[in-house]
């Protein structure tokens, strides 16, 4: 699934500049616990989360992320968006809950990442 299709399906807003929306995303993982995210992501993944602190961006220095979808209408501060832009990490914000976001993407064929 391409990033632009994910944006459309989630009626979401792209927060970072210069993101390559044709990037093909192969799988996703959703959690609000950092250790769970580290524990469960063995392959490059799209992260769905409600966490908007700088540590979510730091995570992308440790594990490979296609991008981050912030759920429940959450938006990180401009400083955090800048951190993501420096890393060329696309950030997306949707009004949908984590459950609904996951359901929509799963139904569109985006599989769960290997854990």
């Amino acid at each position, binding site marked *: 699934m391409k990033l632009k299709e994910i944006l459309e399906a989630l009626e979401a807003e792209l927060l970072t500049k210069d993101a390559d929306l044709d990037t093909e995303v192969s799988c996703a993982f959703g959690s*609000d*616990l*950092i250790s769970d995210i580290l*524990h469960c992501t063995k392959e490059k993944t799209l992260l769905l989360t409600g966490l908007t*602190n*700088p540590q*979510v961006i*730091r995570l992308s220095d440790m*594990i490979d992320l296609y991008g981050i979808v912030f759920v429940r209408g959450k938006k990180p501060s401009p400083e955090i968006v800048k951190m993501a832009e420096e890393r060329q990490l696309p950030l997306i914000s949707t009004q949908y809950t984590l459950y609904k976001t996951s359901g929509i993407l799963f139904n569109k064929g985006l599989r769960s990442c290997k854990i």
Partner: protein
Amino acid sequence: MPEYWYIKPGYEERTRKFLENKPQPEVSSDFEIKEHDFVNAGMASGEIKLSLKRLGVKSEILRRVAIAAYEAEINIAAHSKGGKITADIFPELIHIKLQDNGPGLEDIEQCMQPGFSTANELVREMGFGAGLGLPNIKKNTDVMHIESEYGKTTFLEIIIYFE
């Protein structure tokens, strides 16, 4: 001081020799970690990963080093009064040593149990406190050694072999 040792089966002899011989690292870097500094926490681990990447260490090893170092770095920021990380890189392994300024662990075995956490509200709001920090470190390392006493400090060292 109470201590905890984990050595992955098959690595005992190699590890004993390494710790006894105390060889000089090819590269050694020090990092200061401040209490509750959740803006900068994780930078040291990111830099350690990058140094290894530049040396051509393969990606599966990079992932393990990054996760173990990050969990340990966050532990210092979240639970201690600050501390120091030293990362020593050798041709065949990385040896990371973390020393904090207290308060020490009450019960190391209990801290090793998945789900056990002493994280406060501030730390939990940041997405930490799942009780998976030390288990995640163990899962990703070949050697893990903790020395800690409540009221004193905690020392943690980890070794990850490149092959």
